[in-house]
């Protein structure tokens, strides 16, 4: 009994520490983004929105934001489509070399990003596709498709295996069944996959930095600003990036959790 309580306290403390460790830098970055002083020191100076005004009037930052938006939206759509296709082919078909096929799809996130980025750069330059915005989109799609696949695969595994056959039995062709049964059933997972892949792509730095050329994304511009000098603008951009990523991840979780709840109730 007593032992259990001690364990509980320790666990709570442990979780609290982890959260503090993860979020403290972000919170400090948020605080310093409103600090009038140039250097992040305590005591703080006065409250100021100077750094926000500065980045909002910086054309480079706007361009990077637009690039990031284009890249993460395109990536989300392509990666979720690929993820859905692989998850469905895994659910529906049995074929030789299915194990290697799945392993190949799940491989990209296990490769160190820097290696992946270098390899992408080398490959894209060789085939003359480097330095374009679509280069980042292609690289990010490969990188994030496994996340979408994992979420959609989980959902498909919850599906009554007779459901698809029931639709055929009622006169639905394979395409009609895909449209009216499989996709509606997977809708929450597809939404979750879209937000998740968008978030991963939005944050991703290494690959973007290597293959982007002149089309910089937000994480890339952050690095350029901090290179050589300490500029509180970084805190302001960082806060924006953090808020957008968090929103996407939270949305992904909401779709993910809502269907879990539903399946528990059902």
């Amino acid at each position, binding site marked *: 009994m007593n032992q259990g309580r001690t364990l509980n306290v320790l666990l709570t403390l442990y979780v609290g520490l982890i959260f503090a460790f993860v979020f403290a830098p972000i919170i400090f970055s948020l605080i310093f983004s409103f600090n009038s002083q140039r250097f992040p020191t305590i005591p703080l100076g006065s409250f100021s929105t100077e750094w926000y005004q500065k980045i909002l009037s910086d054309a480079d930052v706007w361009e990077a934001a637009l690039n990031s938006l284009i890249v993460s939206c395109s990536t989300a759509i392509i990666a979720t489509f690929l993820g859905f296709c692989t998850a469905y082919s895994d659910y529906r078909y049995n074929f030789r070399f299915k194990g290697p096929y799945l392993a190949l799809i799940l491989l990209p996130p296990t490769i160190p990003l820097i290696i992946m980025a270098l390899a992408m750069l080398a490959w894209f330059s060789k085939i003359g596709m480097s330095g374009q915005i679509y280069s980042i989109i292609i690289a990010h799609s490969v990188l994030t498709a496994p996340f979408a696949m994992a979420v959609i695969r989980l959902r498909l595994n919850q599906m009554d295996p007779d459901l698809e*056959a029931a639709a055929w039995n009622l006169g*639905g062709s394979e395409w009609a069944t895909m449209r009216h049964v499989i996709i509606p059933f997977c809708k929450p997972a597809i939404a979750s996959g879209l937000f998740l892949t968008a978030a991963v792509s939005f944050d991703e730095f290494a690959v973007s930095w290597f293959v982007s050329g002149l089309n910089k994304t937000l994480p890339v511009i952050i690095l350029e600003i901090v290179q050589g000098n300490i500029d509180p603008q970084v805190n302001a951009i960082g806060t924006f990036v953090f808020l957008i990523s968090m929103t996407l991840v939270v949305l992904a979780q909401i779709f993910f959790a809502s269907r879990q709840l539903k399946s528990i109730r*059902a």
Partner: protein
Amino acid sequence: MSAPLVIFDKVQKHFDDFVAVKELDFEIREGEFLAIMGPSGCGKTTTLRMLAGLEAPTTGEIRLSGQVMNDVRPHERDTPLVWQSLALFPFLSARENVEFGLKMGGVDKAERKERALKWLDKMQILEFADRDISTLSGGQKQRVALARSLVMEPQILLLDEPLSALDAHLVIRMQAVLTDLQRELGITFVYVTHSQSEAFAMADRVVIMGEGEIAQIGTPKDIYRAPANQFVAEFVGRNNILSGTVAELAQDTARITTPSGDFMVPVNEVSLSQGQNASFVISADLVHIAMAKPDGENTAHCRLISEEFVGSMVTLFLEDAKGHEFKVQMQERELSSFDLKSSDNIWLSWDTQSAHVLNES
């Protein structure tokens, strides 16, 4: 006798090395309620799935209204199936589930809705039309599943153990719903089940399958009174099986010597010869009990092992001196006239004509 609607012509189904269906050769008549019954793994569900086009026969032909169905895709057939899992679409309401088949068939929205509501009304679940499937009870879901198939107005309805997930009292209710529907619509029902009570209660004819083959086809009464072989007799249960050798043959009876004694059996359908091994069966409800040795043939001296009450019916389990088990079934009120306290001195007897000789197989 009505015309055959479906013909299984030497149909076999193999899954790699596993033979699910050895050879099926039978007909399904137009407008009949046919039950396919057997223990799990006997191939009954595979048979139904072949009829729906979800499995293709390895060899042989399935013909529906004279047309060979082997290569017809599932969605091009008019063979709606009521699934064991029900397989209702969880993201659609009850009404949208019923409309699904019509939508696939290109029926316009207004007509779809009208026909779906008509069927929901017929199934007495109209008030739940716009409810989420997950909020319905087992019995209500069952009715949605039936409406979803019947709204297609098919010639033939396939049912795969549709009542197996329901409570006992609901099963009886749904049995009545199904038989009434079948009679009213006049369409063919093919009903797969492992439950003898469901099959016997509803079907016009029953197909008993074992290990991928048909063991017997007949009316429930035929199968109950005159099982074709040991497999059917054991599967049907509630009967007494005795085995021995033919000791004496007369005009239309034979004397069979078993470890439990000599018994007379009628010989009309099966040809027996002297000295041959033979088994016969007596339905449990055709066995009489007495407290003193009755006159005549076919008696056994037993002691009572246990009793089982199911409603007003009682099944007595008895054992003779050789340890052979006998079952007797009777109404509970009949039983009250016997004093079963002296339970080790009970006499069983039956008419020779009650016995039925099994085919060797």
